[in-house]
């Protein structure tokens, strides 16, 4: 309560100050940045007491102080803070890769691929079926000819099935969970990132073939798509090796070094036209698995420390970008889609887990970790709206509303899954389920 009063006073103070000053040197963005950190932190602490993940609090803080509600954070300031979001995504991807161990992947890779396959297929079919059923109530599908209709359904569905590595990594970082459910969820989410990119590329090609967009937009060549994925593995692998060498021979200033590496990796991926997330994930994975375990633990610890305030702002900014009115107005359509998507994930994971004879906790709880959506899906939505400007705008609104709903519901469900599976206790951190001694030490230190 005390912090909320202080936050209210700070808000009033900022409002009083505004007429006295002027923009320049990004000072307004700094004020916004600082206020957002404090607001998100405060609301995040409250949500923990309510048994919800902190990131839900960060999202709510962003929504409350964003342009849709109190407008303490302006749209311009959100734009100026875009580099923070980019840094956060790069950090998240690197951290996500560093969470995976080769031994685990070798042991359970096949299982995760099969579970993912089932889950994606059922979600895709479920959402596509629902879109067909609700055609007349969906603005971008009503009254469109057959070919276009099919193209839009495929495009929408291939985006709607995307998961969120950022939410998964942030929640694992927050709770310190390292058990079976946590690892399987993370593995599936990371694999799904590659799968969704491939699927979306295929859907986009199909859509462009059967319903060519207005204006001559060149189709991406198959070679380019292959390079986007394979190049990411190559570039990421090279960065990971450099990090491993640094950890082995230098091992100093890890916080600054890891920040530089993630920025460097993101820029290098852009320069070489490869998939950014996959590049950094691979870099993190290679660095983690090539390095000595103690040193890689230190690197991960440094990364998590530097990432903490960045996560706060990243999710608060994500919340600020949620257009509350649009979400509310589209809820009658979005909610059934969200429910069908969740059912598809649940059924797909259930079937996949039985097929692979996965553990009971995986069958019961992993699906709950896959409901979240965020960055990847938003990126793909932007691509579609630039490809089909008219229908894309309506599709974008609907997809962003769906993402907003899943962004809020997803972390709550994932945390619940971790609690129910016994990997964290109901109040705070991990429940000592971990596979390596350094991880236990790290978790204990964190909690």
């Amino acid at each position, binding site marked *: 309560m005390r912090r909320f009063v202080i936050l209210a006073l700070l808000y009033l*103070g900022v409002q009083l100050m505004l007429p006295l000053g002027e923009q320049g040197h990004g000072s*307004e963005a700094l004020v916004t*940045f600082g206020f957002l*950190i404090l607001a998100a932190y405060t609301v995040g602490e409250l949500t923990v007491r309510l048994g919800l993940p902190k990131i839900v609090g960060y999202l709510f803080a962003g929504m409350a102080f964003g342009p849709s509600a109190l407008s303490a954070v302006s749209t311009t300031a959100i734009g100026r803070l875009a580099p923070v979001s980019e840094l956060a995504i790069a950090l998240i991807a690197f951290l996500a890769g560093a969470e995976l161990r080769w031994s685990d992947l070798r042991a359970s890779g096949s299982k995760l691929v099969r579970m993912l396959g089932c889950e994606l297929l059922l979600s895709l079919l479920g959402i596509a079926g629902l879109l067909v059923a609700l055609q007349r109530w969906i603005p971008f599908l009503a009254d469109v000819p057959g070919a276009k209709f099919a193209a839009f359904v495929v495009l929408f569905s291939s985006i709607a099935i995307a998961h969120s590595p950022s939410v998964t990594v942030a929640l694992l970082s927050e709770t310190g969970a390292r058990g079976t459910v946590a690892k399987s969820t993370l593995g599936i989410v990371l694999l799904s990132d590659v799968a969704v990119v491939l699927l979306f590329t295929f859907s986009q090609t199909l859509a462009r073939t059967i319903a060519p967009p207005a204006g001559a937009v060149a189709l991406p060549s198959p070679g380019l798509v292959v390079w986007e994925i394979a190049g990411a593995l190559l570039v990421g692998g090279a960065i990971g090796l450099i990090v491993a060498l640094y950890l082995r021979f230098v091992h100093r200033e890890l916080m600054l070094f890891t*920040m530089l590496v993630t920025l460097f990796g993101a820029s290098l991926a852009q320069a070489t036209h490869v998939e950014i997330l996959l590049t950094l994930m691979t870099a993190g994975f290679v660095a983690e698995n090539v390095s000595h375990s103690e040193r890689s633990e230190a690197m991960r610890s440094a990364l998590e420390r530097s990432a903490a305030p960045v996560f706060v702002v990243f999710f608060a900014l994500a919340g600020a970008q949620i257009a509350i009115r649009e979400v509310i107005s589209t809820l009658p359509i979005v909610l059934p889609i969200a429910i069908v998507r969740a059912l598809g994930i649940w059924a797909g994971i259930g079937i996949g887990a039985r097929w692979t004879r996965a553990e009971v906790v995986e069958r019961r709880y992993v699906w709950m970790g896959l409901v979240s959506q965020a960055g990847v899906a938003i990126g793909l939505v932007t691509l579609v709206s630039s490809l089909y400007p008219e229908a894309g705008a309506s599709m974008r609104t609907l997809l962003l509303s769906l993402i907003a709903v899943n962004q809020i519901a997803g972390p709550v469900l994932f945390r619940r899954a971790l609690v129910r599976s016994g990997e964290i206790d109901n109040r705070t951190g991990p429940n000592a389920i971990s596979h390596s001694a350094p991880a236990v030490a790290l978790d204990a230190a964190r909690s």
Partner: protein
Amino acid sequence: MAGPFVLILIVAGAYLAAHWAFEWLGTRYMLVSGAEYLVLGILLGPQVSGVLQVSALDAFAPLMILAIGWIGASVGSEFYIPRVVRGYGAAYRVAFAEATLAVVATGAFLTGALAWIYQLPLADTVAPAVALGAIATVSSPAGVAMLRGKLGRRVPAVRQIEVTTAIDAFVAIVAFSLLLCIEHGAPATGPRAPTPTEWAVISVTIGVVGGSLFHLFVGNEREIDRLFISIAGAVILVSGAAAYLRVSPLLPTMLVGAMLANTRRNRSEIRQALRRVERPFYFVLLIFAGAAWDPGTIAWWIVPALVFVLVRVVAKLGAARLAALLNGLTESLGPRWGRALLGQGGLAIAIALNYQLFHGTMLLADVVFTAAIVSVVLTDLSSARFVQSVVERYTQPAVDAPTPNGPSSALEAEPK
């Protein structure tokens, strides 16, 4: 997209090279690391290689403001009142006298010198001269910190130098912040522009109100990661608010740092949280300050810069000697103890960069910035050697023993 990639690659590579090289040199030859990043920034900036372009520097302006604010908060967190109260009063009197004399002497002399060099009326050179006076007052704490590590204990002179560098920082920040309030380019909004006094009150109010609110906000949190988020939010918000109002972020953040360090029991954790990113911010500040350097259109820019360095050396040595004499401590401190205060560090660059950012279009702003950079490049590396030349005499056992009422015993006192 190749631009940012090359930029990050070069900055990262250069940073690491400079870091290793100077760690090696520092260990062997007692060189304090810092100025090399400034030189690195100059080499990367538009004046030399052009890797960091002006547009890129503009984009990084919020980061520079934040780095300035963070340095202010770090300086403020060093002022722990119970230690000041328990300390020996004469040490603080000496420090205040030295700092005040240095800022006044340098400011007064340079007002005349700049007017003569550039053939300007005295009224036009007061502001840049006072800014240079504030910069001249700053003494690097890095040299004494390195030596304290080498000696392994606190000798009286070392403690006096520590107190003096802290007070120098305080006086420099206050003088510079007041200057920006007086020279404030007020926005054309509202019925009338605030007066300089009102800007000074606003500047202090941001710090005091911010400090009070964040004192309550931080609470008794002792977990460093959570504390770091609160403190980062506080420093960012206060720095941004100060910059938005075009007053120096240094004074408000110094007040916030001091209030948090003094009003909470988790003082050491707060210090720890501030220190976590102090070094990265310091390096960022130095690199960008170097890159932002522009000698301007005036030829022979090196002349006023060297005049400044010379005036500063004379003013610091003279002020230190006079301050010790006025307080009857010449014998215990030695006549040349001011040499230990000659090194300049990050705060000097923060002040110069702050002046350049807010008053870059003002008369002689380039001269102020250039003089600060030249002074730091020339003195920062040797700051540990300067300190060593002063404390050598104290390493003798007979002299080293603290006297009951002298500065040593009182300055050694640490609050429980």
